[in-house]
């Protein structure tokens, strides 16, 4: 089979903003955008990691921005407009996840999940919109693109994930609502919903080894995905290879959202993964 790293330059001359670009899927996407010719701005709250990622790739620049801080986002977008005069891609990958039982969930936890995972995407998309639109209107790109990162938990919610899942399900609704409103100005909005991906964020919820094995056995593909496998999908949707794809949600989960795979059932039919 061919290698996952492809020597293409689909984003030559483009500018991409990746929120939550300091780790996991966001960092992998930033690296791929840069490798394919884009100038990339990553945001995050961890200065050390941001500096490390920016220094290990040409054309990746880190800005300390919390996506819940609208003024900081607006300032960043203004800077992008002044510096580059265009914005081709926004990837809303900033996210936080913590498991909490619903019965004892604090209001603080609820807001933490909704504010970063959902409201952050609202802020960034709305703030960036004029620049995304003018990039098309000025003839710099045939279309520009927003890619939202939802989650398997936006489709089928695991125990403990009612707040996180609520935010991620709402992000799907935000994707559809914005997709249908923004396409007339040439801004395509799509969504990627990753399942279990091997990132710092997923290992924080998978917990101990036994728990991780249980997670893996629930994935038909029999393994966790990699951040780079999700990044490849983000780049496809953002590229000019996907001009007719609008409001789509692409689930990248090794089949984990598919129903009815209780291990006992699979054993009955000699179908162990």
């Amino acid at each position, binding site marked *: 089979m061919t290698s996952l790293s492809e020597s293409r330059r689909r984003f030559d001359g483009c500018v991409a903003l990746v929120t939550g670009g300091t780790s996991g899927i966001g960092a992998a996407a930033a690296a791929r955008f840069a490798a394919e010719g884009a100038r990339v701005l990553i945001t995050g709250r961890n200065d050390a990691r941001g500096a490390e990622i920016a220094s290990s790739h040409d054309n990746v620049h880190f800005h300390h921005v919390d996506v819940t801080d609208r003024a900081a986002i607006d300032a960043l977008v203004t800077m992008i407009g002044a510096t580059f005069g265009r914005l081709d891609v926004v990837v809303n990958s900033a996210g936080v996840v913590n498991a909490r039982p619903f019965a004892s969930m604090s209001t603080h936890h609820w807001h933490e999940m909704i504010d970063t995972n959902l409201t952050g995407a609202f802020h960034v998309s709305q703030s960036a919109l004029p620049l995304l639109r003018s990039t098309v209107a000025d003839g710099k790109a045939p279309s520009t693109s927003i890619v939202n990162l939802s989650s398997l938990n936006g489709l089928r919610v695991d125990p403990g994930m009612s707040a996180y899942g609520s935010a991620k399900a709402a992000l799907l609704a935000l994707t559809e609502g914005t997709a249908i409103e923004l396409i007339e100005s040439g801004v395509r909005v799509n969504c990627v919903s990753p399942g279990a991906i091997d990132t710092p964020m997923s290992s924080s919820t998978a917990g101990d080894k036994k728990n991780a094995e249980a997670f893996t056995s629930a994935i*038909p593909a029999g393994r966790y995905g990699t951040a780079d496998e999700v990044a490849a999908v983000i780049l496809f949707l953002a590229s000019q290879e996907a001009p*007719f794809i609008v*409001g789509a949600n692409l689930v990248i989960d090794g089949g984990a*959202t598919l129903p009815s795979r209780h291990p006992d059932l699979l054993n009955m039919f000699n179908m162990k993964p």
Partner: protein
Amino acid sequence: MTSFSGLTVIVTGAAGAMGEQEARMFAERGANVVLTDVRTDEGTDIADDIGKSAVFVPHDVSSESGWNTVIETALSAFGSVNVLVNNAAISKAIKLIDTDVDTFDLFYRINQLGVYLGMKSVVEPMKAAGGGSIINISSVAGLRGASTLFAYSASKWAVRGMTQSAALELARFKIRVNAVFPGVIDTPMNAPNPPGMNDVLVKTTPLRRMGESHEVAEAVLFLASPGASFATGAELAVDGGMSI
């Protein structure tokens, strides 16, 4: 550019606009392609035009013995089967109350039975190859109801369901099964639609245009590529926002 060098791709309905485009783009990116269709003259011409990396097999997708011939041809010509695109389908605007049993059965045989037979046929050769990728072409009418495409819509929902079940069953063999849901694509398949219908379909597409065959083909090629290595059972609408 993603390279499919050394891989063998079967595309059904390859004499139609979308199938032809898929076969040509896979070939351009290095794959060997097996084109199948009931339209022998057109299919042969396309395969001849692609060149040595293409063979055409006259093939009715609803025939189980026909599938045996396709697989045998692929293996003897190119030595493996790595990707199957179940693209062949028929479409006609008919309401439920005007659909007779023979018509419904014809949609079932080509659009549903054909996809099932295709998936079943490639399992062993894909296992032998250490894995593979199946892309089933459904439709927006397989995601939503369709007021004037009753039998077609039923068959395309079946494709969606078969994709999910097959993805679960075949994941352990490293065979990925995904589906693409095209919206209104500018192909001759839309030509027989009643006057004005295509204009209405464009009006109900947020992007306000028909899609092009190559735009669907890019999605198919992506799902077949290493970039989609963790995608199975996934559903990708290529519809200009029509299914929102």
